[in-house]
């Protein structure tokens, strides 16, 4: 029992940059929340970190998406760039393995923003809670965010 009310769980920015509402993502599958609810990061650099402590559930074969199963129940998908599956893994260096436990803020991936932009892709990176119906009082914070420090989402367990 927690006498001070429900526990608030934070989901941290996965990269330095600006967080914008997911509805502003230039891809309907994200803006229409087909995959879940969240924010989209406009990255300032390519250092991608874990938004929550948890287990790396899956890393896309093409390394442009990573799923973290949070210790506190959040299932978070970070999708690095729009349509970047077509890069076939180029521009991404993955630093963790599926099944590995990571700390919140631990570096997961290096994303080569210049390379990806140079190939004509948008680097906007949705950070999505894929099981929003399993949490309560989900709130979002948009604006400038620091990787691994600024909470871009918060919910009650």
């Amino acid at each position: 029992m927690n006498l001070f009310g429900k526990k608030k769980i934070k989901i941290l920015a996965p990269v330095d940059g600006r967080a914008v509402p997911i509805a502003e993502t230039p891809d309907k599958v994200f803006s229409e929340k087909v995959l879940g609810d969240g924010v989209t990061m406009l990255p300032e650099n390519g250092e991608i970190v874990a938004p929550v402590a948890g287990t790396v559930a899956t890393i896309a074969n093409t390394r442009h998406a990573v799923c973290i199963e949070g210790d506190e129940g959040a299932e978070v998908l970070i999708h690095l760039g729009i349509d970047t599956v077509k890069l076939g893994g180029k521009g991404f260096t993955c630093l963790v393995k599926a099944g590995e436990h990571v700390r919140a803020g631990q570096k997961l991936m290096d994303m080569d923003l210049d390379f990806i932009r140079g190939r004509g892709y948008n680097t906007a990176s949705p950070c999505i809670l894929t099981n929003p119906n399993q949490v309560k009082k989900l709130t979002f914070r948009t604006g400038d965010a620091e990787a691994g420090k600024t909470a871009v989402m918060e919910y009650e367990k």
Partner: protein
Amino acid sequence: MKNFQYKIKEEEGLHARPAGLLVKCAQGVSSAVTIACHGKQADAKRLFSVMGLAVRQGDVIDVAVSGKSEDADARTMEDFCRKNL
């Protein structure tokens, strides 16, 4: 329980976008829906579960639909696969 098999034509396999659409479709039916591939099973109503299968183009998925309206729900799922995957 109703089963059907489907060979994935989607170039990118069951990655985020197609997986998300599939999960949305599965969440819309009342039956339990599971997908099996590569000897692993996934709950089709959970995105993480489906993405964890790492299904690629050319893989055959085995879809099992079970519930009171499984006949209609299996048809819904199969139609969805044919149109989208």
